[in-house]
């Protein structure tokens, strides 16, 4: 929220730098390919990277022309913003996940953690408070926990609660709603409740075979540091790719659907609750920021805004893409609706009780 009036940057001064950077990159690519030609088949992937970079450079005037259209410029800015904003959190999650793969021996987690879902799930949900960050980081970590043999229901409870109840997010919520600590408490209670219930429902009725993709996650053998690097590299590309799908979807929905249509349903009880839950799914904003957006939606009831803050960190288009990538598409198709329904009910109940 700071404001600086000095130091403007010229909007398109960096064109020359870009061309230089591009040619350096493609030069590197060519060198790499020639080095290896004798020893093994050319890695087609490297050629494709080079091709994409060169093609994009050639298409630059066209891209610049496209950005003259306000809607496309808006889309591009929101798309890049979501991707850039998520990167530090994704890197944190990927590094933690890789550290688990490298340093936690196989078979340790199943032995160390409680086995009974009735105990393991609430404990895992509460443990989410220990991971500061937003939702992008918790998906790879939960995936790794499942791969290392943790009870799936417990890993999923952790996945849901971590982005919602960590101290950073709760502090942001308290700041966004000054003089109303009940909002923060309601968010904590409703999020914990939702992740515990979803975890327990999954433990009793869930189909763990849907998590096969996460279980089969490759683990390279070797010295821990080598495992750390190769796992982090693998997870970063996989989660990153799905993150891009989510960012593009969210940017498209934000550009195409005007938020002002919300005003039509503001105030109307259950409909307002559904509308704000839908907004949370569509906007896919960081859980550290959603409290500020919720605070600005003053035409809605506090309970509806609570639903926005409970649903957002657990179900949104970016998260669904990440979950589909980590656990599989069929899993995400069941898990997201289940979570959405439970989150709505919990928000309505807790909102009625506390707000």
């Amino acid at each position, binding site marked *: *929220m700071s404001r*600086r*009036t000095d*130091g*403007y*940057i010229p*909007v398109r001064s960096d064109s020359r730098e*870009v061309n230089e*950077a591009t040619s350096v990159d493609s030069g590197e690519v060519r060198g*790499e390919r020639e080095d*290896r030609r004798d*020893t*093994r088949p050319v*890695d087609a*992937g490297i050629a494709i*990277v080079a091709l*994409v*970079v060169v093609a994009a*450079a050639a298409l630059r005037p066209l891209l610049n022309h496209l*950005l003259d259209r*306000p*809607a496309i410029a808006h889309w*591009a*800015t*929101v*798309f890049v*913003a*979501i991707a*850039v*904003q998520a*990167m*530090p959190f994704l*890197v*944190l999650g990927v590094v933690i996940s890789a550290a688990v793969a490298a340093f936690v021996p196989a078979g340790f987690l199943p032995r160390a953690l409680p086995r009974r879902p009735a105990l393991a799930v609430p404990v895992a949900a509460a443990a989410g408070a220990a991971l500061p960050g937003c939702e992008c980081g918790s998906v790879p970590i939960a995936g790794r926990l499942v791969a290392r043999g943790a009870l799936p229901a417990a890993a999923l409870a952790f996945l849901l609660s971590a982005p919602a109840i960590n101290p950073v997010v709760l502090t942001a919520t308290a700041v966004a709603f000054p003089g109303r600590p009940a909002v923060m408490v309601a968010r904590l209670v409703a999020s914990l409740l939702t992740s515990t219930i979803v975890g327990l429902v999954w433990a009793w009725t869930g189909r763990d075979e849907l998590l096969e*993709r996460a279980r*089969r996650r*490759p683990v*390279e*053998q*070797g010295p821990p540091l080598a495992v750390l*690097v190769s*796992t982090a*590299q693998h997870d*970063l*590309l*996989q989660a*990153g*790719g799905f993150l891009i799908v989510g960012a593009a979807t969210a940017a498209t929905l*934000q550009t195409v659907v*005007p*938020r*002002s249509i919300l005003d039509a349903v503001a105030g109307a009880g259950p409909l307002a609750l559904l509308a704000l839950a839908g907004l949370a799914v569509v906007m*896919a*904003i960081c859980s550290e*920021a959603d409290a*500020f*957006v919720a*605070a*600005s939606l*003053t035409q809605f009831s506090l309970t509806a805004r609570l639903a926005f803050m409970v649903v957002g960190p657990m179900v949104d288009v970016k998260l669904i893409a990440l979950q589909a990538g980590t656990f599989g598409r069929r899993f995400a198709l069941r898990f997201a609706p289940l979570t959405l329904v439970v989150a709505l009910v919990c928000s309505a109940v807790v909102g009625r009780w506390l707000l």
Partner: protein
Amino acid sequence: MSAAGGLISLLVGTALLRLVVTGTYGRYVRVGMGPWLAIAGVAVIVLGLVTLVREARRGERGAPEGSGEPRAGAPVAPLDGHDHGGGNRMGWLLLAPIAALLLVAPPTLGSFGVDRGTQVNVRAGGAVLAPLRPGPKPIAMTLLEYGQRAFDHDGASFNGAAVQLTGFVAGTDPGGFRLARYQIACCAADAAPVVLRVVGVRSVPARDQWVRITGSFHPGDGEIPELAASNVVEIRAPEDPYE
């Protein structure tokens, strides 16, 4: 795609660092996130470099890819081999934002979103602000503060002081134009605009043009805060375009 994967990581990290070094990242995320983006960028570059070096060595030795031994009972796919789940092919998509950033660098949010998003309700705070002390220089403030002062006892706290505001033109209005600036909490995806009406101008700058306006409080219709402009200067978009 292991070597290519390393290269993609290298590009991702470079793009992140470049955003921080050029200050362009302020168009997309809160300025306070700079150090975190830099740390993430360095981490991803190191990851990419180590991967490339390991791949190159592996190539020299002529060892087969994915030297890991499958464990008993658990079929383990080699890390850099084919991932039939479609997993690592997704990594290519990371090139999309990099291409966008390296080549065109999408602009700061403009007036397109102003009419479509939910505007910041400046009345919500109901703040009571200390009166300004008029001096020889106009007092610079955010659009949000201006709006709050305008609604605090009908602008009594301005005390007749000249103020200076920076924002972009979000469209024409009877007798002037709309001045807007977004507030962001985290990134441009959560941006919400503060909108004012500027009156008393002779000519209206182009839509989306950034301007620095000197003027004083003008009692409006009570719906949207008004500013009587004495001077309008067209400027380039500030490095931190959001409040």
